[in-house]
């Protein structure tokens, strides 16, 4: 039997014996936090912006799949999709999404030295080196993706 059902049964027996019986309910002291707490300080706002980058990441994943799906419908559908992508409203929206994606990349890679301790020959590799390694990886990945999209496999 669980702790809670045992306590409930004990209260029930006591209440049956004495209707006045009230179990002791402490009232926890909790400060009410306003719903916009994250606007109070720049550091909080930065934190919540970083958290919201996940929306941009999810959106990018979905739109990439939509684009692949549209391409499967033939060149006409693809042309129309490109026209939509080039409309000013969508370009503006995508510029914002793109900034969020960049913010995700930068904040994510900046945390890498804290998340990953690299040891070489029994000694810890300095944080700056791990950080630089991640930025080099970003550069290489960007170059590979762009080159593949633009020229394919030579």
């Amino acid at each position, binding site marked *: 039997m669980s702790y809670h059902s045992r306590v409930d049964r004990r209260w029930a027996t006591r209440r049956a014996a004495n209707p006045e019986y009230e179990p002791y309910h402490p009232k926890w002291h909790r400060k009410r936090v306003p719903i916009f707490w994250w606007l109070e300080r720049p550091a909080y706002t930065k934190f919540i912006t970083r958290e919201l980058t996940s929306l941009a990441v999810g959106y990018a994943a979905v739109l990439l799949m939509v684009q692949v799906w549209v391409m499967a419908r033939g060149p006409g559908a693809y042309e129309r999709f490109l026209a939509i992508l080039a409309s000013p409203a969508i370009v503006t929206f995508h510029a914002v999404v793109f900034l969020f994606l960049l913010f995700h*990349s930068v904040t994510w890679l900046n945390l890498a030295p804290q998340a990953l301790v690299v040891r070489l020959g029994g000694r810890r590799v300095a944080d700056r080196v791990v950080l630089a390694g991640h930025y080099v990886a970003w550069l290489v990945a960007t170059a590979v993706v762009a080159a593949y999209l633009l020229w394919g496999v030579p």
Partner: protein
Amino acid sequence: MWALFSSGGMLAALVLPALTFVLWFGIPLGWIAAPSYEALVAEIGHPVAKLVLLGVVTLSLFHWGHRFRYTLYDGLQLSHLYGMIATVCYGGAATLSLLAAWVLWTFP
């Protein structure tokens, strides 16, 4: 879940800016000499490219699911909706991942 979140975060950090820059701005706005429709279909249709895309998309979706879940808990103080939010976030990521697998599988 944390492993999916962190590998998704890393992959998204490394490749999403490049992918989206080329596909959302470079090609539609004519900033770069865009590959033809046939060339792009061949590039995306390559089995290795499909596999990489599936990995990027699936892990990005789970990255979103995991992080957004905690954004809702903390940012909007919705911790009392614990079960529902988790179901919507992870369920959404799983459903969209299956759709992505189908889109890539049926791609010419």
